[in-house]
């Protein structure tokens, strides 16, 4: 034993593809572990009963029928923006401007409602809202796309900066169109005439949005996976040189995809103003343009999985808010729990792709 060799205790090796049930078992364990850790943190830091905290988290989303509808509405809006940025992401074009593109859509919808009300029939106002907001979103994404295609500018910074332009524009118009005068806010637009308000179907205020986004989701899935455009996007994303080699016009694909991305963000803005809120504020999109990045990544750019990931994020967000009010803790505590849970879920991907092996002692030396 004089020349005892120290072997490393373990090493990391790449796994072969796991069967789906095993990878889901790992994800499930991750959530379980996250809940336990969160429980420990809760008890240690606040002294509250962790089970009660979880129950209230759950109730925040599923407690009443109204809360459930709000949950669905929030999922729909987040999903809509996530679906919008996904084609660009598949192309490895990091559109971080979903926030601004949606907000500019909000602005155009609100502008139509305010400026056209009473001048043309209600249906014409709605048509104008649809056209203008989708167009505006597309233009907002098209500007960075043009510069990327022609001069290879960095789309990440460009789209990000376009967000601030959109926010400032909206802030400006909020003052121009303020109502009542001197409030600096717009308030509910056309509260009595309800001009430009989208029809309520099935007696549920949010149903229209949910249906529209569900349709967009299915359409996006088909577009990305089964159409020639979708294939071109994938090739450009993987390798621009290959795309050029097979004769794909890369500039055109970049601009086309970004226009689509922006148009869908514009649609999200339209739904927020026309169907849900009937008002305009600079924070109307509530950071969904950024949360969408996480939704899309977590789902590995798969539109159908994005339903689940947006559910997860919305659920956690609402749960955090609920904890804060019920237990008199501040919002940050809920955010800590959300962070822990996300950490575990993202971390579980490591264990799905890799395994940790204990080193076997080689041979059978005495």
């Amino acid at each position, binding site marked *: 034993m004089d*020349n005892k*060799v*120290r*072997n*490393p205790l373990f*090493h990391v*090796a*790449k*796994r*072969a*593809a796991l069967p789906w049930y095993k990878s889901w078992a790992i994800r499930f364990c991750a959530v379980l572990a996250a809940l336990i850790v969160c429980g420990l943190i809760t008890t240690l830091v606040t002294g509250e009963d962790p089970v009660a905290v979880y129950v209230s988290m759950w109730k925040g989303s599923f407690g009443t029928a109204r809360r459930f509808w709000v949950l669905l509405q929030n999922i729909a809006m987040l999903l809509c923006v996530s679906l919008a940025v996904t084609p660009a992401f598949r192309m490895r074009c990091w559109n971080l401007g979903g926030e601004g593109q949606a907000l500019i859509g909000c602005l155009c919808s609100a502008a139509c409602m305010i400026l056209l009300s009473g001048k043309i029939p209600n249906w014409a106002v709605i048509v104008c809202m649809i056209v203008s907001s989708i167009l505006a979103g597309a233009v907002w994404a098209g500007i960075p796309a043009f510069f990327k295609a022609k001069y290879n500018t960095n789309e990440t910074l460009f789209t990000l900066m376009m967000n601030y332009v959109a926010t400032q524009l909206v802030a400006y118009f909020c003052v121009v169109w303020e109502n009542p005068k001197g409030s600096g806010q717009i308030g509910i637009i056309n509260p009595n005439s309800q001009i430009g308000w989208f029809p309520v179907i099935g007696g549920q205020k949010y149903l229209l949005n949910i249906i529209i986004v569900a349709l967009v989701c299915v359409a996006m899935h088909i577009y990305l996976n*089964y*159409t*020639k*455009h*979708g*294939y*071109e996007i*994938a*090739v450009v994303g*993987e*390798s621009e*040189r*290959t795309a*050029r*080699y*097979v*004769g794909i*016009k890369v500039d055109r694909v970049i601009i086309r995809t970004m226009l689509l991305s922006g148009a869908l963000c514009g649609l999200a803005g339209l739904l927020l103003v026309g169907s849900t809120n009937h008002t305009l504020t600079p924070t109307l999109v509530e950071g969904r343009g950024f949360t969408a990045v996480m939704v899309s990544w977590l789902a590995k750019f798969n539109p159908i999985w994005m339903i689940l990931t947006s559910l997860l994020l919305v659920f956690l967000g609402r749960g955090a808010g609920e904890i804060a009010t019920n237990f008199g803790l501040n919002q940050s505590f809920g955010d800590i729990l959300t962070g822990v849970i996300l950490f575990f879920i993202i971390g579980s991907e490591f264990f799905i792709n890799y395994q940790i*092996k204990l080193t*076997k002692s*080689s*041979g059978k030396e005495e």
Partner: protein
Amino acid sequence: MRNITKRFGPVLANDKVWLDIYRGEILALLGENGSGKTTLMNMLSGIYFPDEGEISIDGKPVVIRSPKDAFDLGIGMIHQHFKLVDVLTAAENIVLGLEGKLDLKAAARRIREICDAYGFEVDPSQKIYNMSVSQKQTVEIVKVLYRGADILILDEPTAVLTPQETDKLFTVLRNMRNDGKAIVIITHKMHEVEALSDRVAILRHGQFVGDMLTRNTNAQEMTNMMVGHAVTLNIDRPEPIDPKPRIEVNGLTIRSIDGILKLDDVSFTANSGEILGIAGISGCGQKELLEAIAGLQPVEKGSISYVNDNGTKEELIGKDPLEIAGLGVSLSFVPEDRLGMGLVANMDLADNMMLRSFRRGRSVFTDRRSPYRLAENVVRDLEVITPGVTTPVRRLSGGNVQKVLVGREIASAPTVLLTAYAVRGLDINSSYTIYDLINQQKAAGVAVIYVGEDLDVLLELADRILVLCGGKVSGIVPGRGASKRDVGLMMTKLGGKANG
């Protein structure tokens, strides 16, 4: 190395391999692509850790957990892809990552000593980005020597070198051997094995097949051991059938984006049913030439015309690949960068087949069935080793990747086939498959333009050889009867014989 086993997921890369490396000897490690040579050496140099087995150096068992452990044990590896920082000088790269006080002057002095001892030519203060490939390789070798390595591993060191540079490298390696260092060289080129090594060790499918003294064996026997059955080592060269001009290039001049002249007044004709070989030191405009014909490279002046069967001509310059295809010109291109240009590494075989065909039909949806069938045919006909047609191509070994690419390109029944370094990095068996495929295309009346780096192969395969030197045509010689020496001279000097 005893009983070394390494798995990557379900793939057994090395299976109970035994290998002995002696000081004062050059060992050639042979094996087909994917037979586990590089994996084995990576375990020796600390990049991977073996799943089983043990490594002893000078009789003492050792554990190599990291490249640093390997350096401490005197093991240094020179990889195929250099790991140098472009904006630093040679000396800075060499001392990079070493502990202790930074003294570049002392370092430069030691580098000069090492160079003098073995016959290297390195300027310690030269920046890496100003260096040729061969100079960069030299820096890599000096880097490991500087760290006190006395076991050197070189992974396909000659793949990027000209014949002259290769000779220089071999001299240096012999000097190091005579100094008592142990040298392992991974290569595919049989004549290099015979010229350089003292002993060969052969791996097949991750298993150790055997080793022997080089002087007791020959290329045929080594190849048979590598492949596992007897193979013939001759390349066919049937006479061209009814050659007619197919591509006429006139006064082609190309500048790169930085304004550097890449091709200067190049003119030639490629005939149908003929293989036109293109020889030249790498970076002499071969890439630009092929890409210009394929419609991927802006041209300063000159013309490239495609001659139809009925004698009418189509100008290809100024058209992109789509427009060229729109003219009815069926042009296939096997580019040098297989995974970065010819194929999409992350897509599966079927989706890669679709690259050429996905536009067919008016439907907005893609037709997935015919590429899938094509992929199955290619896998079957070209004996591609893959778990299935839904495997991403990046998981395939180099030879199989190339078979997929060539299979797709010839599936479209081309009239012109451009290939760049079609067998680079491929083992013997795969290389011969590719030569056969190219010959079949030639027999079918395709005008083949074959850019190659291995002169021996060019001289055996091509009907005519165009030699490029610094972007100019140095000469066009018939493939039959040309001497390697003459072509080699033409590669380095315009006209070749100018100096007598």
